């Protein structure tokens, strides 16, 4: 199905590529898409796999001879957080230090056709926030760069091991310098919200085209959505419901086992 979608896309591209070339003389154009625009979190949700794919349209349909690289970035809604650090004090490990970060994406994944350091220079990587160690997390009240770096590394490492920050080198496949596709994994602990998918076209260490028009919505659905809204907005009712359910449960179990 995906292959057919790609072929259809290719046919459409070849039809419009003449116009596109006239509109933009030198720059190639990106036509990105994603396998699903909505991810629903339901009772069996264990994570999802997103296929991000698209095509590169070159001016006058001429494929360049230089190597083209593609980076795909999926980014979740940002959140302000406090990061706490445990230290050993009087023999026990307690939260001793903390730092606030004002914009931490709830999810961030980058897939590239080759290792990042081979396709972009550090300055470009910083500008486009390419790579999990180049995210602008906006630490508050920075006094020492050393301390910032320590907390930054701790936060990135925590999220990387939790599967919420991902960096996949070489996982973007490019076919004939025209079609690209990459698979990104979303774990079950992913935050809900509006996600943006960005595709960057890279040549000679420079980003020559970027497109962040694709949006994906991840939200809870059905029972999960109902429980979340109830717990959040109708807390009193939710609490009463939780109590009644557990009382009924215990009572029914007692009745049931009396008969056995």
């Amino acid at each position, binding site marked *: 199905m995906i292959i057919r979608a790609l072929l259809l896309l290719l046919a459409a591209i070849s039809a419009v590529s003449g116009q596109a070339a006239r509109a933009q003389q030198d720059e190639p154009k990106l036509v990105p898409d994603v396998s699903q625009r909505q991810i629903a*979190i*339901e*009772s*069996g*949700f*264990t*994570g999802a796999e997103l296929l991000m794919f698209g095509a590169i349209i070159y001016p006058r349909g001429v494929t360049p001879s230089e190597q083209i690289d593609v980076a795909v970035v999926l980014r979740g809604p940002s*959140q*302000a*957080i*406090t*990061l*706490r*650090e*445990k230290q*050993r004090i009087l*023999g*026990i*490990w*307690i*939260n001793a230090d*903390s730092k*606030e970060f004002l914009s*931490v994406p709830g999810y961030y994944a980058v897939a590239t056709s080759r290792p990042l350091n081979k396709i972009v220079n550090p300055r470009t990587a910083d500008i486009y926030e390419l790579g999990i160690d180049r995210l602008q997390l906006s630490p508050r009240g920075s006094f020492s760069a050393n301390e910032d770096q320590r*907390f930054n590394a*701790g*936060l990135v*490492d*925590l999220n990387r091991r939790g599967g919420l920050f991902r960096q996949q080198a070489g996982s973007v496949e490019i076919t004939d310098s025209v079609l690209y596709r990459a698979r990104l994994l979303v774990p*079950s*602990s992913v*935050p809900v919200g509006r996600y943006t998918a960005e595709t960057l076209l890279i040549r000679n260490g420079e980003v020559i085209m970027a497109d962040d028009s694709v949006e994906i919505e991840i939200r*809870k659905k059905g*029972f*999960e*959505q109902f*429980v*979340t809204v109830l*717990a*959040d907005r109708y*807390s*009193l009712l*939710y*609490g*009463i*419901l*939780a*109590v009644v*359910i*557990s*009382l009924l*449960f*215990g*009572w029914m*179990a*007692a009745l049931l*086992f009396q008969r056995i």
Partner: protein
Amino acid sequence: MDVYLPIANLSVDAFVIILLGGVVGILSGMFGVGGGFMTTPLLIFYGIPPTVAAASASTQVTGASVSGVFAHMKRGGVDIQMGSVLVIGGLFGTIIGAGLFRLLQEWGQIDTVINILYVLMLGTIGGFMAWESWQSVSALRGGRPAPAKKRRHHPLVANLPYRWRFYRSGLYISPLAPLILGFVTGVLTMLLGVGGGFIMVPAMLYLLGMGAQVVVGTSLFQILFVTISSTMMHSLTTKSVDIVLAVLMLFGSVTGAQIGARIAQRMRPEYLRALLAGIVLIVAIRMALGLGWQPDEIYSVQPL
């Protein structure tokens, strides 16, 4: 079978949670304790956020203690008057506990406080129980009868003013003592997600000097109401009660409790108590070591 927990925001293996509830249920059926002191640490160990674990565990203890309360009421094992005083203290305790919970959360010290409280309480009570059951088991082995204990309340309790008569418990003491005891367990219920039975029972026996025939029933009566209050407080303040998690654990624990109760009927109470003391001590030692070991995660995230 994977099930998504809507409040904890992650998916878990339902069978693991049911099994975990089952193990706790067997213990609670065997020993007549709620088992909350094992549920919360096990859930945290499985990867459930500590706040969700504590909040949902108290919901589970509510369900687990209902049948016990009914059973004890039928045979007159609940001192309602004493229980009500304990419950009133417990309700205040959960309210204060909720404030304390929020304060500690803001300071980022809630996990440490929970761990230290666990170590202190389980260590003290486990040690006390181990010592006592060692005496009774060795008395049993030696064929001598255990020395009869004088049942009387602690001098501190005796000195409190405004005495009431608690007929069922056979006591003439100030209601302030059970009120304070209820309050303390209420705070602990809110902070730790435990019913507090393992503190209540020894405190009722050795501090208040209640008659043994009403101790377990009255303690369950208090646990029932205080965990209800704690579920409500958590729903209103931390919003961390995960009903799916609580129901999964209930599946396991109500079944386990029946199995545990049947095991308990075939064992001598002296050995049963020694076994419980051993389990409590193991949990306490494991948690004490955990305080000193380098944790798996040095960093933790809290939304602003």
